[in-house]
């Protein structure tokens, strides 16, 4: 009983203890805040990394898409009507292509089939995007993806990131009337600029009249026929013409927008490509065994804004059939995007099954989105681990302050320890007073630190704004991270671990002074002046 009484009494009356509490509190609060922000960043980053990636991707390194394989994974060569193997321009046999429909059929018929929620074929390729901006021709390296918008939306991670068609169940590459108007205006402007560029030719010489033909007067200028119907609207006509309908393209947001800081240091965003503006894409052709550049023109119809700069500055979506046409790979594709019904449960099983279907020897790979972003995800974890280790040293410092202060308190309490022993207190009892005291300081420090940490985490954006205003320097530059707010995510289990660790350190560091107190000989303690 006396142990509890004295612990509580020492806690209330020793001001030195306050220092221990504050150091534990600050350590715990820092750990909680840093962990919450790190975890917020990593969760948000994971969300974004997952973002446009589907759960599982099957893709092939062959530019001509998936091919039929034999049991060993070798491509099955095409044969002509005489049964002879057909060779491509590179001298290798041309394999039999595997159509997306057949491949999907096989995927769904495999044991993994029932666990797959959606699957869609895509064509992915590196490409160069070229467009006009303020009288200049600019190029950007991009990742060109041909998708069936409805199928891609079903796999997830697509339509929710579209700017105009955000969350649409069936997004499309169709152009809006405004976009078509813009396209029309662009065309007229280009035509006008071409006309002005035409040099002034000298007026045609009047030819001498041919013999035998009367010299007729020049025809009178046509009189406007007021009764004739007005000429049809050009844009409407263009929209109605099936062949004239240009293919749409969905651009990564950063490709179409320039961000820079103006003279006053403000971040300015300028739209370089409006919906309806034309872009040209250069990509490698999709023939077996040959590398031939191909290109196609598309009109901007929408933007993809994942807030993940890597995706926003490189992803370019075009309709699958248009890309198949441009790359001359009709009826073929280079990747399948899959969505699983329960990703965490089924990812291993489904990838195993798919690997059996698509042999790596044929250039095909099966990977979950995590495997694709493995190094980045691992880097986040490593970073978090190291940061935690470093920050725990803060609590370690708090532990040493407990050690120092406890040693002081024990020396101060020499005589009291002797008195307690003379009144029948055991050595273990005296020890447990001080260990209990350490525990109590740790617990109080942790409780306050947890409160403080959670409060800071909760108001971190307000604090950041205040600091930015006070110091005049951006603490959290939003244009770097593409986050509107500092993301936080408090993991209860981690908070618990931080608390347990801090209390543990407080107890461990109070052991030595407590042991010294317990070992104290009562007679010597009583004589202590």
């Amino acid at each position, binding site marked *: 009983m006396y142990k509890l*009484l004295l612990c509580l009494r020492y806690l209330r009356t020793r001001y030195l203890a306050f220092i221990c509490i504050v150091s534990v509190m600050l350590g715990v609060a820092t750990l909680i805040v840093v962990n919450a922000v790190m975890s917020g960043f990593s969760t948000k980053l994971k969300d974004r990394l997952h973002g446009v990636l589907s759960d599982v991707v099957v893709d092939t390194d062959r530019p001509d898409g998936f091919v039929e394989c034999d049991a060993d994974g070798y491509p099955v060569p095409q044969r002509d009507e005489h049964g002879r193997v057909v060779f491509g321009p590179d001298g290798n046999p041309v394999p039999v292509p595997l159509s997306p429909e057949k491949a999907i059929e096989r995927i769904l018929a495999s044991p993994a089939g029932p666990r797959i929620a959606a699957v869609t074929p895509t064509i992915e390729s590196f490409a160069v995007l070229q467009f006009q901006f303020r009288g200049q021709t600019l190029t950007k390296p991009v990742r060109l993806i041909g998708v069936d918008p409805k199928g891609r939306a079903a796999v997830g991670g697509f339509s929710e990131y579209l700017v105009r068609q955000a969350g649409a169940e069936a997004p499309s590459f169709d152009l809006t009337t405004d976009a078509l108007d813009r396209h029309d205006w662009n065309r007229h402007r280009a035509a006008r600029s071409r006309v002005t560029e035409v040099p002034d030719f000298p007026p045609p010489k009047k030819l001498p009249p041919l013999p035998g033909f009367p010299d007729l007067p020049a025809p009178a200028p046509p009189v406007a026929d007021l009764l004739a119907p007005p000429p049809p609207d050009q844009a409407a006509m263009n929209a109605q013409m099936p062949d004239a309908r240009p293919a749409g393209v969905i651009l990564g947001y950063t490709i179409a927008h320039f961000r820079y800081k103006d003279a006053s240091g403000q971040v300015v965003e300028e739209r370089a490509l409006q919906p309806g503006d034309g872009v040209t894409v250069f990509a490698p052709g999709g023939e077996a065994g040959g590398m031939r550049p191909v290109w196609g023109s598309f009109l901007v119809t929408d933007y993809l804004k994942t807030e993940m700069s890597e995706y926003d500055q490189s992803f370019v979506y075009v309709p699958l059939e248009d890309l198949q046409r441009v790359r001359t790979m009709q009826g073929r594709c280079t990747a399948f995007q899959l969505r699983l019904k329960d990703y965490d449960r089924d990812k291993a099983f489904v990838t195993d099954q798919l690997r059996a279907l698509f042999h790596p020897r044929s250039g095909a790979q099966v990977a979950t989105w995590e495997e694709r972003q493995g190094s980045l995800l691992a880097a986040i974890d490593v970073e978090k681990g190291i940061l935690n280790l470093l920050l725990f040293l803060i609590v370690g410092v708090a532990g040493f302050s407990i050690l120092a202060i406890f040693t002081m308190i024990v020396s101060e309490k020499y005589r009291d320890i002797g008195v307690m022993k003379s*009144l029948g207190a055991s050595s273990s009892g005296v020890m447990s007073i001080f260990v209990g005291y350490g525990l109590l300081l740790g617990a109080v420090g942790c409780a306050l630190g947890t409160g403080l940490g959670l409060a800071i985490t909760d108001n971190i954006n307000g604090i950041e704004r205040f600091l930015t205003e006070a110091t005049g320097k951006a603490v959290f530059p939003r244009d770097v991270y593409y986050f509107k707010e500092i993301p936080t995510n408090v993991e209860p289990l981690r908070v618990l671990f931080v608390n347990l660790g801090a209390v543990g350190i407080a107890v461990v560091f109070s052991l030595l002074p407590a042991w010294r107190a317990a070992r104290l000989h009562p007679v010597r303690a*009583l004589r202590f002046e």
Partner: protein
Amino acid sequence: MLVAENLHKTYRRHAVRVPVLNGLNLEVKAGEFLSVVGASGSGKSTLLHLLGTLDAPDAGRVLLDGRRVDDLPGRERDALRNRTFGYIFQFYHLLPELNVLDNVLMPAYIGHSVVGWWKSRSRWRARALELLRKVGLTHRLAHRPRELSGGEMQRAAVARALLTNPRVLLADEPTGNLDAGTGGEIVRLLRDLNREDGVTIVMVTHNLEIVSATDRVVRMVGGVVTEDTPATPRPFPHPRLAAV
């Protein structure tokens, strides 16, 4: 009742051996008020510590009711100090963080677990209040030791020593830090306790004027008992003390 047989004790300080007790023999009878006198360094306090199992002798034995107590395991000696012996010190040694009542209750706190204390707390509280009434400190219950005078602190210490109804009270110069008048009060209090409640008291002092209140005086020189006489009956308090 309490017997010391051939006690030897030597302190070592920086490799220098300081013999304090050299074969001391002493018997304390039940219900006796014994005073031990001697010059500083004669081993009086050491004798008290050995009798009360606070320290262990290098040689010799301490017997309580015929049972050897100096070599008992730590836990039993702790229990003995908690219930059988009561200590009074020259410098009172009250715990500064606790108020008078809590200080008096300290032996009960030490002797009980939280649950045990919770069950018996009203009994102990009543006992402490009774003792505090006896020593005249009922108006000082909630005061901290630093707010008390020396005499009051010593009276609180006496109440603390008596809480568990000890059979032997070991007083180490209880008046050494008090003026003559206050010291007289404390000695009178001890004598009353001895006479009325039958508490055996061993009091160490070098104040020859207060020994007259005791039954027997033992003089120590050089770590042995040199003189063992009944105290000279003198009117108490001594006229000179009364004059102060």
